[in-house]
């Protein structure tokens, strides 16, 4: 957090050491996310997917830092802007891409699409098309963990806009009174669709809302993968120690429009530029002292993985219309 340009950090904790190898892996995942989404955009423009999608380009550090601090036993509840968290959680790019293209081989057999990618077997409880839709569910996962008496935690991801939904209030309050092992990860990318965060609430930090529930709240630079890791790591430790939930606000920015139909009349190009200068991938590569060549070749590796994912997805079969009624009831 020493490198954070924002004075947003409210934790005094000394920075935990991530090994160079770990940081290197994280960088790769961030690159993979970026290439995944760029490819998704391409496919969309080529008419190979329909529907909509929400890209998180620019926000990769938050996803990778957060998942990096959790274990394979933990749970993830993801958002509509969730490709990054999904990949950071360790999901396979090919099965994700197949889902994105609506194929039978996709994580959800083509029934869910971009906004609903899940892998319950890996405790990835899915992206959610409903803003704040994951928050009430996280309370139940917390209760379940407590009842089963395991050392798990659940992380629920949501946006700045989501923090104005009633579900935010009810869920954090419940998690607090019951001391549940829930990490509330608020990705503050400064906008909810066209609504700037400063117009949607009358406070400076979303994390200040934690006080309304008597829980820990912290704001970190969401473009600093290490800061995010640190905050989630601490929150996890508190949760497992029975100290209850934490609200973590990660300040970051989305470079692309909200979704495909966004003309971005609500912000300036300059503003976007300013944030691009704080690019999380460039920053981590810089911190790692990588040469341009090293960086390029790592990006190449990510591209190759994405290319294979696309090949897999394109070669995969469509769902059979005869199976259309499947999966409504168990």
């Amino acid at each position: 957090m020493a490198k954070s340009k924002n004075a947003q950090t409210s934790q005094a904790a000394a920075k935990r050491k991530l090994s160079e190898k770990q940081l290197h892996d994280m960088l790769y995942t961030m690159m993979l996310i970026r290439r995944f989404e760029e490819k998704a955009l391409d496919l969309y423009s080529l008419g190979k997917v329909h529907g909509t999608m929400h890209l998180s380009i620019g926000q990769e550090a938050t996803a990778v830092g957060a998942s990096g601090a959790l274990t394979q036993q933990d749970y993830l509840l993801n958002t509509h802007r969730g490709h990054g968290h999904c990949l950071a959680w360790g999901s396979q790019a090919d099965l994700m891409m197949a889902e994105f293209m609506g194929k039978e081989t996709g994580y959800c057999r083509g029934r869910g699409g971009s906004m609903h990618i899940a892998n319950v077997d890996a405790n990835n409880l899915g992206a959610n098309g409903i803003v704040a839709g994951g928050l009430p569910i996280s309370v139940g996962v917390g209760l379940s963990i407590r009842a089963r008496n395991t050392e798990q935690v659940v992380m629920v991801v949501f946006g700045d806009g989501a923090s104005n939904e009633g579900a935010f209030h009810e869920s954090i309050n419940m998690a607090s009174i019951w001391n549940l092992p829930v990490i509330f990860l608020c990705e503050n990318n400064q906008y909810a669709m066209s609504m700037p965060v400063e117009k949607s609430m009358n406070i400076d930090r979303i994390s200040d809302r934690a006080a309304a529930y008597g829980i820990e709240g912290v704001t970190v630079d969401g473009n600093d993968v290490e800061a995010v890791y640190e905050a989630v790591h601490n929150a996890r430790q508190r949760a497992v120690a029975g100290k209850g939930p934490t609200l973590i606000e990660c300040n970051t920015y989305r470079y692309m429009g909200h979704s495909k139909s966004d003309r971005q009349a609500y912000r300036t190009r300059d503003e976007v530029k300013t944030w691009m200068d704080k690019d999380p991938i460039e920053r981590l590569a810089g911190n790692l002292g990588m040469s341009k060549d090293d960086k390029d070749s790592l990006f190449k590796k990510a591209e190759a993985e994405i290319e294979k994912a696309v090949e897999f997805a394109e070669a995969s079969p469509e769902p059979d219309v005869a199976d259309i009624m499947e999966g409504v009831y168990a």
Partner: protein
Amino acid sequence: MPSANGTREITYVEAVREALTQSMQADERVFLIGEDIGVYGGAFGVSAGMHAQFGGERVIDTPISEAAIVGACVGAALTGMRPVGEIQFMDFITLGMEQLVLQAAKVRFMFGGKATVPMVLRTPGGSGTGAAAQHSESLETWFTHVPGLKVVMPSSPYDAKGLLMAAIQDENPVIFVEHKLLYKVSGPVPEEPYTIPLGEPNIVREGKHLTVVATSIMVQRAKQAAEELAKEGVEIEIVDPRTLNPFDDALMIQSVVKTGKALVVHEAVKTSGYGAELVSRIVESEAFDYLEAPVRRLAGLDIPIPYNRNLEYHAVPQVENIVAEARKLVRGDY
């Protein structure tokens, strides 16, 4: 207390409680969550004593946060538990519709059939207690319009216990609608645990002149109406779907084929009520060719439930209304 034929008789509320208790004893994954269900025992006393018996970790009192109650059930169900949520009055489920309809009901399908959400949401519906328009709703039809949900409405203590135990064992989200006025109704209920398969209707009474399809408290009223009508030589057959959705309508269709006439009765308002679905199923089926009269619906008036006792009484079908409608249909007098 034992009934005439020796089976123990208990009330509907006791039957629900027994189903919950036995389910919790049999399966550690089952827990209860809702407002005032702990020491208070629930607004209608359903969980009386259960907090003392099972403790606060399995009988969980919540703040007033209906959306989060439903969501808590979804999350727990997705991760290996079998939550049973209580919505204190059916009306308040309007606050939890997103979690119920867009999450609980859809998650399995959206995830390609790779997840299950085995949860039950119990809630008391219906009018007759003077609680007025915001505490007297009959919203079950909405839920039958949501693929992925099962909707159960027991009309007797026996059904309440058996259906609730089945609902808790079911792998799907189930809305379990109790009726406030039924809570005190007694009937024979075996002590041992048992289940009644979801989806199977019940022929509550056999008859030959008219098929009356009724749900929840209207089954009780139809039974009383049947006694009146029997005095006049009119024998009605009463079909109780029990599970409103998914509903195997074969028995109902058969019955209408036999009687040639059908009357559908429910408490919810008539327009777009469940009765419309039943009528449609009847006229779309082979029973159409056997119909000797139009199929009729007797349902709640298209108004919010009024506070005044007399208005409230007249807002929904009563025994005398069923008798009158049945008579008209049987006599061809419509």
